[in-house]
């Protein structure tokens, strides 16, 4: 233990709480509180109501929830497939080409999401790839944005994988494809599900690129939340935000359950 005196320890903990609670816990609590209220003019919200949630779980909002879920699911599956393929291919390359591939696939992290949105809008608004106005332009942009994260986590997992397994498999007469399918991918499964969860969460909350290119009939939750707050419906916006967080958390929880099962099998 770094600090031995009791007094100093308590002092540190107090500072920690004073910093941590208002900065990190408070925002979430505020949004949660507001989602059940109609007014907030004092220290606490007032006018408890469930109306915000009634509004947040039907009609437009319900459709936005499905839109977000479908978008995030499709985008993460695409990103995971592309990212895993790329990471596996990169692992087989020489040192220098691997570095180049790392840089290439991490590039979307460095490029502002708004610019990714603009680029996708510019590129897919003209033939031969006319996606503008369809849900696919949103899904494509999301997939581009989260592929980097899938690539990064899978690549990290591959370097952690003990080469003894694939070598044992090869010495037993298994071709590279068989080794990949029966040994490497199953061993990577926990990392793959973790990457999938990350991609899903990022896509669920994506706003920047989406604002650039969502068609009217494909409005994900973050856009709806912005629209609500923009017209002053802060309390409804909070309720939708809570729905967004809850949906994300539920999927993450399911994924982590799957992960524990995968690693204990």
């Amino acid at each position, binding site marked *: *233990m*770094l*600090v*031995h005196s009791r007094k100093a320890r308590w002092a540190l*903990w107090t500072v*920690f709480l004073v*910093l*941590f609670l208002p*900065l*990190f816990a408070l*925002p*979430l609590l505020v*949004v949660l509180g507001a989602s059940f209220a109609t007014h*907030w*003019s*004092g220290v606490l919200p007032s006018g408890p109501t469930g109306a915000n949630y009634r509004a947040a779980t039907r009609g437009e909002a319900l459709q936005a929830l499905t839109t977000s879920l479908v978008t995030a699911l499709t985008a993460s599956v695409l990103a995971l497939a*592309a990212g895993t*393929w*790329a990471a596996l*291919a*990169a692992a*087989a390359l*020489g040192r220098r080409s691997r570095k180049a*591939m790392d*840089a*290439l*696939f991490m*590039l979307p*992290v*460095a*490029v*502002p*999401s*708004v*610019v*990714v949105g*603009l*680029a996708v809008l*510019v590129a897919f608004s003209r033939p031969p790839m006319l996606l503008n106005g369809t849900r696919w332009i949103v899904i*494509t942009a999301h997939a*581009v944005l989260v592929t980097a994260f899938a690539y990064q986590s899978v690549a990290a997992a591959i370097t952690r994988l003990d080469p003894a397994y694939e070598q044992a498999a090869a010495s037993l007469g298994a*071709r590279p*494809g068989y080794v990949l399918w029966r040994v490497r991918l199953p061993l990577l499964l926990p990392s793959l599900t973790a990457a999938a*969860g*990350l991609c899903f969460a990022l896509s669920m*909350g994506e*706003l*920047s690129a989406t*604002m*650039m290119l969502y068609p009217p009939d494909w409005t994900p939750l*973050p856009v709806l*939340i*912005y629209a609500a*707050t923009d017209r002053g419906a802060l309390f409804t*916006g*909070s309720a939708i*935000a809570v729905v967004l*967080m809850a949906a*994300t*958390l539920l999927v993450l929880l399911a994924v982590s359950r799957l992960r524990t099962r995968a690693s204990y099998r």
Partner: protein
Amino acid sequence: MAEVAPQVRVVRGGSRPGGGSRRSHTAPRPYKPLLWALPPIALLGLVFLYPLALVVRQSFQPDTGGFSLQPYADVLASESFGRALWTTVWLAVAATAGCLVLGFLLALVIAFVPFPGARTVARFVDVYLSFPSFLITLALLFIYGGTGIVGSFRFLTTPWGVLLAEITYFTPFVMRPLLAAFSGIDTAQIEAAGSLGARAPRIVRRIILPEALPALAAGGSLVLVLCLNEFGIVLFTGAKGVTTLPMLVYGKAILESDYPGACVVAVVNVLISVGLYGLYRVVSRRAGA
């Protein structure tokens, strides 16, 4: 895999007398791994690199058509661009500094002065990362908004409100690599230093900080890039006074339909971010190696 699979012992009988051929020892089929790398690269090219190239092209094409530097001249000379550039950079730098200090302190307490529930807090940090950034601004709207708890609407429309939101949202991005790095520090080392009479600040400076430097560099540069690119936090403040480069891209493209102008700002923004990101990769490789 598209490889003909001869059975294990087909190649039998190809007896070769001893010293016959001691050559041909280059790696077999070196082009094959490259071939496997091509499909994902092509895909990335189609949905990311090619669109990005189109943005660059369009930034040289004013609405009147043809190739021209006019869009650059127009945008770079405009006052709004200069202000946005300045706001973006100083906000990002200040937010990064804030995140580094705050993240280091908090991670230090979680890792080395653990309290009951410290693990839960560490888990909470992980969950926090999976929420969208604009939630923070949404909450701040209630706290500092017109009728809010503190009730100074002015604050949110200034850059300081954005700064507070960015520090709040991005600090966990510094904490996570730090916590990972701290878990690699041998507690025996700290106990040994303590038993030799070193006081806490000295241990932090001499043992913990050097170990944490790569993580700080990595987390800090990531946060710097993310702050430069942040859009949701700024958008949700609804403040007209705070315009950053990503906001300018959005405004020009969607609100004003000035695509060449938007593309110019986008190119500048990408150059700054990618340049910094490249620098980060070089620095972190140095620090890591």
